[in-house]
């Protein structure tokens, strides 16, 4: 197969001259190499610069381990909550008609258009010492901001729309005939959901969850505002990377960062598979 061959499925009978094609492909690949491939390579190259032992030592460091633990806890709370919300919202929005639907859709998307810094700030304004509930919380000795609950809240906020946004169009395109058929055949509401709806949106859920999880584990700005940056206590993996980097401990910083880069690659792989499956499912309609 020659480079710059026009579409092999012959769908595109009209195309540009050979040199134009070749030129455009070269431009695209060089651009993507500079912006995507090189940084990705750099993460791993920097991480292993001083050999495997140093790399593993950096990961085995107690502060690193506790940051990994915190990140896992955060994702373990935020992702299921947003998954449950996403499925519920998609059920209401895709299977029923009601006034105010478009407004609701816009509001669900809202967290995507808010700067991560603001996403953290709003929780400081509510739960911080100077915040609405600050004095009350201090009286009762409850710490939310600059503690784990704040990190989890901010993470839920920034990952809020992921599952819903993936499921709503998918469920809308599938209509509600299959659910109606199940009800006519005597299935209860829950049976209909678990036996008919859920299998049909399985890959959509996987897609949404994997993206939600990637963002939950990788969020930096919002978490940075509410974390308080206490080493070994309120540092997630991305925040730990920052600290290591700012301490000029580059190898350790990149070693920890390589974990996140690896997560990103797995995410991309699963995402690609899920995308393919969803497309296939839509074509079967």
């Amino acid at each position, binding site marked *: 197969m020659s480079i710059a061959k026009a579409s092999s499925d012959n769908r595109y009978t009209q195309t540009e001259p050979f040199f134009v094609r070749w030129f455009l492909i070269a431009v695209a690949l060089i*651009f993507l190499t500079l912006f995507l491939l090189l940084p990705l390579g750099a993460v791993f190259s920097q991480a292993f610069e001083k050999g495997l032992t140093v790399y593993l030592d950096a990961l085995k460091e107690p502060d690193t381990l506790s940051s990994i633990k915190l990140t896992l806890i955060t994702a373990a709370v935020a992702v299921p909550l947003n998954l449950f*919300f996403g499925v519920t919202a998609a059920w209401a929005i895709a299977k029923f008609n009601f006034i105010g639907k478009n407004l609701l859709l816009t509001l669900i998307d809202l967290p995507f258009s808010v700067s991560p810094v603001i996403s953290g700030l709003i929780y400081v304004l509510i739960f911080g010492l100077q915040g609405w509930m600050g004095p009350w919380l201090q009286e009762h000795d409850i710490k939310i901001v600059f503690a784990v609950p704040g990190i989890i809240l901010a993470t839920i906020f920034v990952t809020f729309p992921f599952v819903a946004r993936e499921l709503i169009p998918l469920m809308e395109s599938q209509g509600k005939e299959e659910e109606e058929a199940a009800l006519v055949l005597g299935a209860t509401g829950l049976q209909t959901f678990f036996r008919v709806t859920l299998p049909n949106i399985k890959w959509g859920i996987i897609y949404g969850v994997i993206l939600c999880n990637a963002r939950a584990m990788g969020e930096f700005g919002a978490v940075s505002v509410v974390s308080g940056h206490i080493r070994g206590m309120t540092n997630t993996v991305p925040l730990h990377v920052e600290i290591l980097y700012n301490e000029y401990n580059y190898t350790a910083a990149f070693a920890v960062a390589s974990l996140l880069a690896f997560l990103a690659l797995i995410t991309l792989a699963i995402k690609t598979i899920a995308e393919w499956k969803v497309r296939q499912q839509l074509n079967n309609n």
Partner: protein
Amino acid sequence: MIQRKKHNNVLPGFGPSLGFTIFYLSVIVLIPLSALVFRAAGLTWGEFIDTVTAPRVLASYKVTFGSAIIAACINSVFGVIVAWVLVRYRFPGRRIVDALVDLPFALPTAVAGITLATIYSPNGWIGKILEPHGIKIAFTPLGIILAMTFIGLPFVVRTVQPVIEEIEVELEEAAVCLGANRLQTILRVIVPLLLPSVITGFALSFARGVGEYGSIIFIAGNMPMVSEITPLLIITKLEQFDYRGATAIACVMLLASFSMLLVINLLQRWTRRFAE
């Protein structure tokens, strides 16, 4: 406001699912966001204006919005090329490249930040090559544009790509049958079809750039008046316990985000105006 039409009532669970949706949305998103607005309302108008128009703040707007516009322009050009190449041409590794386009979505911003800073710093892989020519990227405003380009790229590609996929081959064939050459076909048939999606992609990329924090702070140098972005300024104010200042500036940012959200929604409606 939200009322269910009666004829849709066979499927169960509408009440509980909508109820939970609104409850969760309120608790997680709406109430916290409104806290920001109420906090800002506690400031007098004069205070508010003074805060959000202080020279250092104005400079940060210029850096943030200016860089975001330039980054969105770069992404619009290269994003369209990437999308076109991915849909129209076949070359080895196309699928992997296609998947890789989403890397900025998946890669945590902090990782992107330290990596870009390392590569483009004077002794990094690319910085080393540019340094002798007097081009400095890391720790200058150029670094901000670079980081914003990185995180905004998928928005343009993923907005334009499906539109290119949907262009019917017959349109181009019709143009050729009517005597148009390839360039005329592209300029008169394809570009007008793509334009709305390119503009939408531009707006999405721009909006993402304006709000971005993580990937930028490592590469920007963060010099007040020169390379300090607005989100960083909010954090700085917060660290100095200047909650009022942080709130006021955040409000301006929020207003900007909502305006962009509105524009993007209108653009998307405009994009779909030919759809059946």
